[in-house]
Each structure stands twice: as C-alpha cells, then as structure tokens.
C-alpha cells in the first residue's frame, strides 16, 4: 500500500459525507446503499465513523459528473477513467467524483458503483494506490470481483490501519458465533488460543493460525498480524507444521500429505511435494509439528504420540524411528500442535498450553500459555 505525500489523514474520527447529486443509471436508494456499504468497508477496520448530511459542506462530498466538472482533472467519456478522489483535507480534499458517462450498476454487468466507491473512499481517507492486484486500492477496475464475498485485502487493512489504527475493542460486544465455514479472525490474547504451526524465519518467529499468522521479531513487543496469502498466495491455510532449516535459508510448510518450501516471500519451484519422499510410511497422513535442531542438523517430525528423526545432511530418515515422544521428550505430549526453537529451548504447543523444554537436560523447564510471545 501507499499513502499520499505527507501522509494526510483526518484529524477526527467522525466524518460527514454528502451525496451531492445522483446518476440516472440507478435508483437513488441504490446509490445511497452503495455509498453506505462502501463506507462500512472502511468503518469496520478503523476507529472511523460516518454520518450523512443532506446540505452544506461535508468532509466527503460525493458527486457524479461528466467531462469538465470544475477541478483540474476532466473526465473522459465512457471507459478509461471511472472516478477520482482527493486525499483528506479541507475544501475539495476528501471529495469523490464519479464519471457519469460510465454505466453504473448494482452488479458487475456495467461498472459496479459499490466497488468503485469503496476504492475512491479509500483515497478520501488517505490511501494511495496499492501495487497488489488483489487489493481494493489497486488502480485497475476488476470486473470479476465476487461481490457476495467481497473483503478488503490484508494490504488494504494494513494500509488504512497504518493511518488510523484498528477499530476500538468493545468489551460489551458479545462474540457472535458464525454459521460460516470460514474461520473467525483469531484473537492473539484469547486464553484458549491454539496454534496450527510455529517456525522461525530469518530471526523472526511466525505463529500460524487458520488463514493468518503473527510475525514476531524479538526486537519488538507487538507482533504483526497478516493473511498467509498476502505473503505466499499459493500456500494453504490451516497448515499442520512448519520448520526452518537456517543453514539453507528455507522454511518447509506441511499440510496433509504435501509440503512446500519457501525462501523469504518466495515459494520455491517444484513444490508441493509428497511427504512420503522424506521416508514416512504410507500410514502417516499428516505431520503435527516439526523442528530443526541446528546443533545436530536433524529435524524432528511429530506425528500423533510418536516422532521421526530426519538427517538434513544425508536427506534421509534415521533408522530406529519412530519412537514414542514421551520417551525422549519427557513431560511433552502425547500429541503436539506445533514446536519451534529459541534461545536453545524447544517450545512445544498443545492446545492453549506451551511447554519450554531444555533438550540438553531433557526436561520441561516452564509451562506457559500458547500466546506467551504476544505481549498480552
């Protein structure tokens, strides 16, 4: 994402808008509803609120116009430029203009007013164009957007929250159960939080949960929170395990019978591959957790109550495995969700608990909550 030069923002959180005139392409209530819905897109991820006024000067003045319309940027007839808007500030700033030579529609048969309005209002709030094609703030109109499933991209959310912060949490808001199969956005300080996978990556720690991950640097207290797809579009959500081979600058990601390799933000060619090429028997359907031991150059794969040991130098499973987890990691298990290494300790995650394990002393040294790294 980008912001405008000088990062102009609104200095207040409650803004007014006015629909100055209407297109003839749509009924008035359809225009009202598209604008309301477009504002709500941004309202949901920021502390900003909006109210409509019907006369006088609003912060955001919305107009439909053709060709020359009183600013420095004339419209150009049907197609090409659909609309434009100005960054926050007084006067024309904050205003959004729509080219009425377009065929505005509620669906995507013409130019969808909601999509364009949501984009323009992003400018009105201070976002410049994004270079991410999946972002709402990408400059080119995408007529194949699925309106029923519309959602801001992580890039849009990160961008607008860099200007205004996230919406305030209300303790009175009950957590609404959802009937949707789509997982809820996980809350890092939820005491019942469990994790899918944890790994280091170039000195940072990544905590994966459903479609998201937290990225924690040891230099900062607060972790960043991102969509997995915003960094690695081809990786699956709900992954099973992840580990970093630091000496090769590679992180391996496991889900089901497949695994991927990533280097930084690039998924490596030739993946996904089947886990059985690593030497697992066909009975193994998924890996629960994995960790690379830098000292021994071995990777431990945890599956149910057993573990396998993989020699990264020989690229083969060590003989004599699997073994029971509890035999060599007393106090851990029987089953683990995730594991990673920091400061010479192994940190095992199981449900909402985390065990700090000293691999030299072969004992658990601390019991923690799974979110102990999140500065809750």
């Amino acid at each position: 994402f980008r912001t405008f030069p000088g990062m102009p923002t609104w200095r207040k959180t409650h803004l007014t808008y006015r629909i100055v005139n209407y297109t003839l392409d749509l009924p008035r209530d359809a225009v009202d509803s598209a604008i309301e819905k477009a504002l709500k897109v941004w309202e949901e991820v920021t502390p900003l609120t909006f109210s409509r006024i019907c006369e006088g000067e609003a912060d955001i003045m919305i107009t439909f116009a053709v060709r020359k319309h009183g600013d420095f940027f004339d419209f150009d007839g049907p197609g090409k430029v659909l609309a434009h808007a100005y960054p926050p500030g007084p006067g024309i700033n904050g205003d959004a203009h729509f080219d009425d030579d377009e065929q505005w529609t509620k669906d995507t048969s013409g130019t969808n007013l909601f999509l364009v309005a949501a984009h323009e209002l992003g400018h009105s709030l201070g976002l410049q164009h994004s270079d991410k094609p999946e972002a709402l703030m990408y400059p080119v109109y995408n007529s194949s957007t699925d309106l029923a499933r519309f959602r801001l991209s992580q890039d849009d959310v990160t961008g607008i929250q860099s200007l205004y912060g996230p919406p305030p949490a209300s303790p009175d808001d009950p957590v609404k159960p959802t009937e949707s199969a789509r997982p809820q956005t996980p809350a890092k300080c939820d005491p019942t939080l469990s994790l899918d996978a944890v790994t280091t990556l170039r000195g940072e720690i990544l905590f994966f949960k459903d479609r998201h991950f937290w990225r924690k640097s040891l230099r900062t207290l607060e972790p960043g929170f991102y969509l997995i797809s915003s960094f690695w579009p081809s990786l699956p959500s709900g992954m099973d395990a992840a580990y970093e081979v630091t000496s090769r600058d590679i992180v391996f990601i496991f889900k089901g019978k497949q695994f991927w390799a990533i280097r930084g933000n690039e998924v490596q060619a030739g993946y996904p591959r089947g886990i059985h090429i690593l030497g697992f028997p066909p009975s193994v359907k998924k890996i629960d957790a994995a960790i690379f031991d830098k000292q021994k150059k071995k990777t431990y794969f945890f599956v149910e109550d057993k573990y396998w040991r993989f020699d990264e130098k020989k690229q083969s499973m060590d003989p004599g495995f699997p073994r029971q987890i509890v035999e060599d990691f007393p106090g851990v298990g029987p089953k683990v969700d995730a594991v990673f290494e920091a400061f010479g300790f192994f940190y095992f995650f199981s449900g909402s608990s985390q065990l700090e394990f000293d691999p030299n002393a072969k004992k658990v040294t601390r019991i923690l909550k799974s979110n102990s790294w999140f500065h809750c």
Partner: protein
Amino acid sequence: LPLNGAARDEEDSMDLVQHYLEDYYNLAKDAKQFAKRKDSSPVVKKIQEMQKFLGLKVTGKLDSDTLQVMRKPRCGVPDLGE
C-alpha cells in the same frame, strides 16, 4: 492521408501510452518520440516503473499484456506521487 489499420492501431497505442504515463506516472509532457528511444530513455524507465507497479513483466516494451492492462478502466488518481 488516412492511415492504414495497422499503422493507426500503433499510433493509437502510442497516444494511449503517452497519456497514460503523463497522467499516472508523472511523465514530462514534452517527452516525445518515446517509442523509438533506447532503453535508457526516461520513457522506457517510466514504462518499466508502470509495469512493475501494475505487477506486469518488466520489459520496458509495450507488449500486448501491458497494453491490455492500460486499456482497462481504472481510477483517475495517479499511481505514483511526486
């Protein structure tokens, strides 16, 4: 004299590119004859900048993918600030 079809298409594309780069990528208005210049020309650099920003293959040339994206409807706000 009227241009033949292919020549007209090419000229239209050149106009489109010139205006696109001027409007959205701050190309100086006096940068003429841009298509014929060498790789180091400011126009080629602007095309590369645009291709990079729009997630296209960065060639510095007006390939069909680049022209296709430039012909799509878009927001009128410039992609890059001063």
